[in-house]
């Protein structure tokens, strides 16, 4: 292999996209050629420069995208796989490999069936051709109970979930109640993030503040805890909030959350914090948090260790 060919293949080599034989030839050449070894080193540096130039979207942008998508989807009705799709699908399976004349017969049969089906099919089965006004129709349903009743009839109890779009201000009781409920939905961290993000703008409400404190302490998702913390900032001097913050500082396993908590706590220093900070110095691994903790203790003329 010549040097020029070797250098041309270096990017594909670094991406692991060369064949086994090509890779063998290139590695053999690099072993024997100091100039190409150096060139490979430069190629790797170039790759690192590209890596460092990657733009990563913020969590905030992702949250906004998700919220906007949810709003837009609420206004759109998806096309559903309806009777006609299923019929068409069925015919495509049966006649796909059939000779031309059979396909023609199939098409004619489909046409006849189409007219017949249009007369016989109830409106609810027509999928895309359904009438508007979806909001009142059940989105999901589940058969809860079946029972034979007199004269050969059957009685079925069906649970139906309906979807409604509500809009209003955060001050509205209904909106707030639903947000508080969504903020605790264990099945959907994204929903909790967005709900807490909205609720944090109303921390003056005792109910909202309780929900934020609960989320900060108990939510398994760090993103939700950070949003809750954001909403509690203006209450950093409130005793109940400080007590929760202290517990979170000592127990939360996410260094990002602990970093925000310590920054918030040491804005309002008190003698009661000394013990907590000393305990933290004994167990904290994160350098930044240790540094903030040590600085706060020094400024309060307290020892950084307990004896």
């Amino acid at each position, binding site marked *: 292999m010549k040097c020029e060919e070797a250098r041309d293949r270096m990017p594909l080599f670094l*991406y692991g996209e060369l064949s086994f034989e090509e890779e063998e030839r290139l590695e053999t050449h690099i072993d024997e050629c100091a100039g190409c070894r150096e060139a490979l080193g430069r190629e790797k540096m170039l790759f690192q420069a590209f890596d460092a*130039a990657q733009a990563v979207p913020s969590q905030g942008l992702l949250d906004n995208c998700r919220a*906007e998508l949810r709003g837009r*989807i609420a206004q759109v009705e998806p*096309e559903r796989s309806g009777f006609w799709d299923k019929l068409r699908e069925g015919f495509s399976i049966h006649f796909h490999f059939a000779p031309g004349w059979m396909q023609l017969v199939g098409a004619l049969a489909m046409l006849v069936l189409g007219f017949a089906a249009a007369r016989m099919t109830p409106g609810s089965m027509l999928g895309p051709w359904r009438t508007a006004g979806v909001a009142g129709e059940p989105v999901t349903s589940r058969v809860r109970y079946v029972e034979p009743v007199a004269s050969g009839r059957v009685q079925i109890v069906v649970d139906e979930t309906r979807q409604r779009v509500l809009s209003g201000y955060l001050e509205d009781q209904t909106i707030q109640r639903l947000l508080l409920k969504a903020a605790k939905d264990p099945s959907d961290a994204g929903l909790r993030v967005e709900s807490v993000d909205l609720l944090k703008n109303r921390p003056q409400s005792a109910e909202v503040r309780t929900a934020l404190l609960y989320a900060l302490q108990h939510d398994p998702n760090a993103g939700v805890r950070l949003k809750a913390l954001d909403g509690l900032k203006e209450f950093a001097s409130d005793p109940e909030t400080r007590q929760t913050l202290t517990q979170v500082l000592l127990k939360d396993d996410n260094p990002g959350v602990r970093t925000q908590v310590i920054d918030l706590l040491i804005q309002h220093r008190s003698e009661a914090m000394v013990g907590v900070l000393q305990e933290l110095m004994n167990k904290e691994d994160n350098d930044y948090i240790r540094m903030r903790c040590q600085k706060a203790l020094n400024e309060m003329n307290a020892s950084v260790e307990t004896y």
Partner: protein
Amino acid sequence: MAQAAVKMDEPELIRAAQKGDQRAFEQLVRLYDQNVLRLAFNLLRSPEDANDIYQEAFLRVYKNLHTFRFDCSFHTWLYRIVTNLCLDALRKRRVRREENTVVETGEGVLDRMDTVEEGRAHGDPQRQLLSSQLRERIQKVLGELTPRERMVFEMRHYQGLRLRTIGELLGTSEEAAKNCLFRATQKMRAALGDFV
């Protein structure tokens, strides 16, 4: 709605979403949306444009999910939509020539290329100068790649997709994707080689 609360695998989520289960659709979106946004944001470097791609891609998925027949993976189906949208946006941008390194993020205005400087030349003025010139060159040469070269480079370098997959997504062969990547890396090396 109750059925989506139970942990479902991807085909189950797709089938539930096809039947109109909104929560299943949302869970499906969340399997992929971070990567979709990362791809669009890194290619277009604008939060607004990345959001537009995100919305358009997932709305198309939502509206057309009933046509998905499991002939290919959902990932392939989704990425075909996303890459087409991104290519269109890149082509429009190429006409407008509005590349800009400064982007707005949740944390404020940010020059995306600052990360290069921080990572490579911390504390050394001479290296900082070199790094600053390097980031300008990276910026320029990325903008000079054709939309297709840019897309292939993006998908291979940043998304880590194999060339075979990239070819499948872009409706071309693995060999054509390889040639495209080769041209992109050649151009970048020619423009940046003297910096490293």
